[in-house]
C-alpha cells in the first residue's frame, strides 16, 4: 500500500537559546532546517500537555524563533524547559507573509503586544534590506514598559527604519511614548498614500481600530494585511475549529489581505 506522509507525528527540536523578554514572554530559539516564512506557525507540543500553535518570530540559518507567552497548560510547561532541552514541533503551517508585496513601497507595520512576533520576520527583513522598501515605519504598542518585547532588536531597527514604540500607560517621566498605536496613524506622512502598504497584527480590538485608522487616512483596503488567530487543534484543515465562513484560518491564513480578512465574521 502506498503510504502517505503522517503530518501528525511531531519531530524533536533542540532549544538552542532562551531569550527572556518579560516574566511571561520568552523567545525559544529552536533548531530547524527547512523553508519557513514570517507569519507561519508551528504546532509546539509536550506529550501529556498537548499542542499549541505558535508563530515564527525569527528565522535563522538553522533555527526558528518561537516567542511564547505563558498562559496555560502547554505554555506553562514549555517555560520549564532550558537550552539543551527539546520540544516537539510540527509545521510550518499557514500561508505567512510574502515580503514581495511590500518591496518598493512605503510600508507601515502596526503591532500590538505579542502581535509583534508574527510580523517580526518582516521587520527584520526590511531592517536588514532597508533599501528594498521605499520607507519602513514600525508602530509597536505594549501595555506598559515592563511588557515590551524584543528590546535588543528595537535598538537595531531604530537605526534602519522609523520606529514608534509606545505603551498604553507608564509612570510619569518615562522615556516611552504613552498612547495607543492608533493615535500615531494620522501623523504619518506619505508620498503616495494610494500605493502605501500596511501590516496590522495584534489583539482583535487593536486590529479593528488600527485598520479603521489606516482607511480613514486614505489607505486602500487591498493594501492592508492582517493576521488572524483562532482556536486550532490540527493546523492542517481537518479539525474544523479555526473555520470562519468558508475559510480555514490555518490553511488559507493566518495572514489575510484586508479585502478578505474584513469579512471573517465568526
Amino acid at each position, binding site marked *: 500500500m502506498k503510504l502517505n506522509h503522517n503530518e501528525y507525528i511531531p519531530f524533536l527540536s533542540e532549544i538552542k537559546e532562551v531569550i527572556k523578554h518579560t516574566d511571561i514572554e520568552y523567545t525559544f530559539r529552536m533548531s530547524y532546517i527547512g523553508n519557513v516564512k514570517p507569519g507561519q506557525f508551528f504546532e509546539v507540543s509536550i506529550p501529556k500537555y498537548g499542542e499549541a500553535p505558535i508563530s515564527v518570530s525569527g528565522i535563522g540559518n538553522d533555527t526558528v524563533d518561537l516567542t511564547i507567552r505563558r498562559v496555560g497548560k502547554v505554555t506553562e510547561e514549555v517555560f520549564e524547559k532550558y537550552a539543551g532541552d527539546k520540544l516537539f514541533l510540527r509545521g510550518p503551517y499557514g500561508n505567512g507573509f510574502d515580503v514581495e508585496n511590500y518591496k518598493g513601497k512605503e510600508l507601515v507595520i502596526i503591532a500590538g503586544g505579542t502581535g509583534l512576533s508574527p510580523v517580526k520576520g518582516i521587520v527584520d527583513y526590511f531592517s536588514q534590506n532597508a533599501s528594498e522598501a521605499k520607507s519602513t515605519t514600525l508602530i509597536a504598542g505594549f501595555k506598559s514598559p515592563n511588557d515590551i518585547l524584543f528590546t535588543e532588536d528595537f535598538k537595531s531597527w531604530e537605526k534602519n527604519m522609523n520606529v514608534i514604540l509606545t505603551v498604553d500607560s507608564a509612570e510619569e517621566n518615562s522615556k516611552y511614548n504613552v498612547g495607543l498605536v492608533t493615535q500615531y496613524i494620522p501623523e504619518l506622512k506619505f508620498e503616495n498614500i494610494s500605493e502605501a502598504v500596511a501590516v496590522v497584527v495584534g489583539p482583535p480590538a487593536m486590529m479593528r481600530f488600527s485598520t479603521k485608522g489606516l482607511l480613514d487616512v486614505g489607505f486602500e483596503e487591498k493594501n492592508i494585511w492582517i493576521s488572524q488567530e483562532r482556536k486550532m487543534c490540527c493546523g492542517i484543515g481537518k479539525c474544523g*475549529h479555526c473555520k470562519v465562513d*468558508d475559510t480555514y484560518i490555518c490553511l488559507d491564513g493566518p495572514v489575510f489581505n484586508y479585502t478578505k480578512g474584513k469579512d471573517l465574521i*465568526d
Partner: protein
Amino acid sequence: MGYSLNIDNMNTVIKKWSESYLIYAPKCFEGGGTFSDTDVVRYGQIENVEEIVFNKKSDFSFKEVLLPISETLFYFTEDSVKEADERKKKAIIFLRSCDLHSVRRLDEIYLNNGFEDYYYKRLRENVKFILLGCKSSFENCFCVDMQTNKVDSYHASIDYDGESFLIDNKCSDFENDFENSFNKKQDVIPSYVTENHVKVNIPDNITLDIIKSKMWDEYDSRCISCGRCNFVCPTCTCFTMQDIFYTDNGKAGERRRVWASCMVDGYTDVAGGGSYRKNNGQRMRFKVLHKVYDYKKRNGYHMCVGCGRCDDICPQYISYSNCINKLENAMKEVNEIES
C-alpha cells in the same frame, strides 16, 4: 451483475467475507435509545444478515468506522513517538444512499482540504460499501431535495423483499462469492425513494448578512448545546486533540483525536478565556450555514445529505430542516433592513 439469494446463501457470502473483512452494518441495540427504554440502531460488526436492520434508519451513521469517536494517533514517552498500528483487516460497510453520499464529504475534508490525513486514508483505502436500498422515506429524511436519494458509487447493493436478498454487484472481488452462492440471476436496480415527506428549500441568494437575521434568536434558549446533532451527522468531521497518560507510568501516554461539536461549549475557546459564538443561536447559525452555504462556496456542492438524523435525535425537538426553510424569509428580512 444482479442476483437473488435466499437467507442461507446470503449468510454463506457474509461468512466468506468475514474471513478477510470486518463487516459493519446498522444493528439493533436494546434499551440504548434517546428517549428512555427504547432501542437504538447503530453501527456494529455483524456475523449474519439477520442482524442487519433493514426497516429502520440508523440513529447514528456509519462514520465511526472511518473516523473513530476516539482514535489514537501515536504513543509517546517524553522524547519519542510511535505511530499507532492500523486495523489489520479490510472493512465492509452497509449503508444507505444518503450516507454513501456523505463519504464524498468526509473524503473532501480528510483527503483534500489542504493536507491528506494519514489515519483516515489508511482506513478509507480498505473499505468497501454495500448500499442498503430505501423502499420508502423514513421520518425526517429529505434526501430527494438534497439530491442524495440515488447513488452509483457502491461496490454492491442489497435489498430485502421479505423473502430474498436482491444484489447488484459491481465489485470484482465479490464476484466469486456471489457466483458460488446465488439462487437466481436477475437484473437488480437498488430501490431508492423519489419523494420525502419533508421538503427543503435552500435559497440561492444567501449572503453573510443573514447572520443579522432575528431567526437565530429562538435557538438561544431552545437549544441546550448538547451536540447530539453533530455526533449523529454523517458529514460532521471535527475533532479535538487529547493527550492522555497512563497513571502507572506518568511519562508514557498517547495522543488521541476525539469527536468535537461546534454546538458544545469550549469549541472555540482560546487561552485567556476568549471564545467566539457564545450564544446557542450563533452556533446554530454556524452549523446550518456550514451545511447548506459555506461548504458549498468552498467545495461546489452542499455538505448536508438530508439524512434527517439531527432532527431525529434533538432532545429539544429542534428541526434543522425547518430552520433551512426559514432561510428564505431571513434573507428577505435582512435585505429589507439594508434597503
